[in-house]
């Protein structure tokens, strides 16, 4: 129905229907909105508020203005942690996303039979909780009794010390890749499935090889998904916590209490009992992560055009 053909009463009725539709959406959103409000927005402002105070074991609580925020900006422990997760992001994310993309393209190549089996096998590690995965890999990395140590022993060579400062980031990257590769693969795969077959047919008629199709048709078609997983990984990298926190018990000499920004805030809050400064640091960590996400998103938008 268009405005030109509609009679006046009909138009009024339509407006009414539309209004009711608007209203009906609210109850559906409400559970999310409430949880989001109480779980995110209010705590965010509470953290901001906490950051303006200082609490001492002797002396109690006092208002200190922006002192905690200024201190955080000059805090070398926080920035060192940032540098580390930034480096980690460059090690882990490209590797994981490339592997996920390759796996998805292979599954989508229609040359694999019983596709459900490799698909579920690759996705399975995602079902393992991060802490459990880190513990499991911690055993595997072991120099004397772990798989690494045993294999090296059988070959008569020295096992690499995965817990040393040189390899630790790789050890963590490997765990995260193992956990999340299948998850990203599934996102890519489902995006690939909705590309119309006609595109491939016309590419084949034009003489494109399967590799060429993958590169020039499939990947550009799913760049929205690639962008999304990149953002997820960026955020995940900057919030790195579980893996290093578990491996810390195995390698206390390598992983310190401020190894990643999240570990640092956690230790400030629960070991140093300094909730106020921890709130300030976590807000700054959150803001920097948001800025980085915005930058990556802006670059991605340009790619889209």
């Amino acid at each position, binding site marked *: 129905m268009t405005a030109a053909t509609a009679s006046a009463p009909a138009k009024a009725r339509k407006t009414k229907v539309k209004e009711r539709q608007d209203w009906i959406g609210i109850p559906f959103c409400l559970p999310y909105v409430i949880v989001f409000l109480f*779980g*995110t*927005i209010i*705590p*965010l402002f*509470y*953290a901001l508020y*906490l950051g303006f105070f200082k*609490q*001492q*074991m*002797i*002396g*109690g*609580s006092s208002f200190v203005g922006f002192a905690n925020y200024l201190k955080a900006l000059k805090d070398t422990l926080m920035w060192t942690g940032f540098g580390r997760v930034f480096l980690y992001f460059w090690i882990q994310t490209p590797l994981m996303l490339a592997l996920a993309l390759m796996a998805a393209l292979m599954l989508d190549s229609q040359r694999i039979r019983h596709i459900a089996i490799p698909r579920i096998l690759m996705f399975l590690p995602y079902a393992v909780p991060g802490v459990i995965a880190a513990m499991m890999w*911690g*055993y595997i990395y*072991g*120099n*004397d*009794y*772990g798989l690494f140590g045993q294999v090296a022993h059988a070959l008569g060579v020295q096992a690499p010390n995965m817990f040393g400062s040189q390899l630790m980031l790789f050890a963590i990257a490997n765990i995260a890749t193992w956990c999340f590769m299948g998850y990203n693969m599934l996102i890519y795969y489902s995006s690939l499935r909705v590309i119309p077959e006609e595109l491939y047919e016309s590419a084949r008629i034009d003489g494109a090889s399967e590799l060429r199709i993958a590169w020039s048709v499939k990947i550009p078609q799913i760049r929205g998904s690639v962008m*999304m997983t990149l*953002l997820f990984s960026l*955020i995940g990298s*900057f*919030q790195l916590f579980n893996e290093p926190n578990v491996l810390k*018990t*195995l*390698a*206390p*000499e*390598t992983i*310190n*209490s*401020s190894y990643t920004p*999240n570990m640092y*805030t*956690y*230790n400030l*809050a*629960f*070991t*140093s*009992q*300094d*909730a*106020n400064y*921890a*709130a300030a640091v*976590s*807000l700054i*960590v*959150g803001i920097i*992560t*948001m800025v980085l*996400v*915005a930058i990556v*998103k802006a670059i991605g938008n340009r790619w889209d055009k």
Partner: protein
Amino acid sequence: MSTKMKAIVAAASAAAMALTLGACGSGNGNGGAAGAKTAVSYSDVEAALKSDKDINLTMWAWSYDTMKPSVEAFEKKYPHIKVDFVSTGASADHYTKVQNAIKAKKGLPDIIQLEYDALPQYAVQGALVNLAGDGIDENIGKLYNDAAWKNVHVGDGLYGIPQDQAPVAAWYRTDILKQYGIEIPTTWDEYEQAGIKLHKADPTKYLGFIDTSGNRQFIQMLHAADATPWTVDGLKDITLNLTNDKSKKVAEFTQRLIDEGVLAAVPSGTDEFNRAFADGKYASWIDGSWRGGLFATGNPELKGKLAAALPPSWGSSADDVQVGEAGGSLLSVTTTADTKEKQAAALAFINWVNSDPESIDAFQTVGGSLFCAAKSFQSDSKYAEVDDAYFGQKVNEIYFKAAEKINTNWSILPYNNQMDSDFKDIVVPQMKEGGDISSALAKFQDKLKTYGTEQGFNVTAK
């Protein structure tokens, strides 16, 4: 997904962190004033047991199963004092609950269990009652091991009654020592010689290890060596002296033992470590006496191959040995018990549970085998004479001797958790071949000073 959505996801973590922070912040708002000195005297405590007036007390502890038989025995004997005893689960959860209740200024029970290491932190926050009333020290103090009695003091105040204790002892793999013709060392010099001999004979073996998973082993070595790395006066004044000669000597000696292959620097408690220990990679273990009880369940295959001994002495002979501590807990009365009657009943109760022979007996039989701090336990030949089936030794006799030799010249920092974290950040990375523990101690001291000063203590570093 839009930028805004992503930003929201990113912000959520900061927010989630903030939420937990809100629930778990530190300290209370009363400016860390010491708990009001109680007017409760020893005669009040005696009267509280004889009275027939009903008193209801509440108590939180993590070692619920261990203590339950003793608490029941008390209630049977003194039915007018009723104890609502609540298990707080694991000790980490216990401290979170206690800290939250202090912060919220409500919900804290009358009595809480604490470790010696945690006591000063709660005492300076003003959450505990100073129990040093007339006649308490004279009449109750004598019931407990001297070191334990000292540990329940902060400044001049008495903030708890000791329950159990953990004098440090050593356990040696006698089968390995025998194989290489090594005697159990009694001094650190002998320990070093024995360790060099063992490592030379079999480079895959170490006489012992230095635990990198926390401060416990190294700090107790400072304690045993009488190094006094810090002293705490009153509730506010802390003097740090981690660079004194004795501390330096312990640091340099430990470094040398690592470099010589006498000690392996390794985190204990990991699967890798436990398997290596079972396989005989480390021929000794130096830790709190409670460790002895864990071997029987953790390493049944080593039955008859382990022997307990006093830890090595820092002096020139075994007679000079001074012993450090590694844990132990106590019961404190909190400011929730705000009447004289309640405080007297609470003190009477915790003193009975921690020292009455009937309660001690319950701790040793129904509740397990707690290493009580009471003299009624440590001086009773009935407990010393017990032949331990696992070790084939009268191990209690050794632990009792160690308890007697605990160096009482020792203070506990009121920010022990932070100390542990800083120790791991600064000292542990140097615990390796070619490391420099001694200069790490100087940096460690700087960090402790900064933190203490920020928390409002008067910290002097020497």
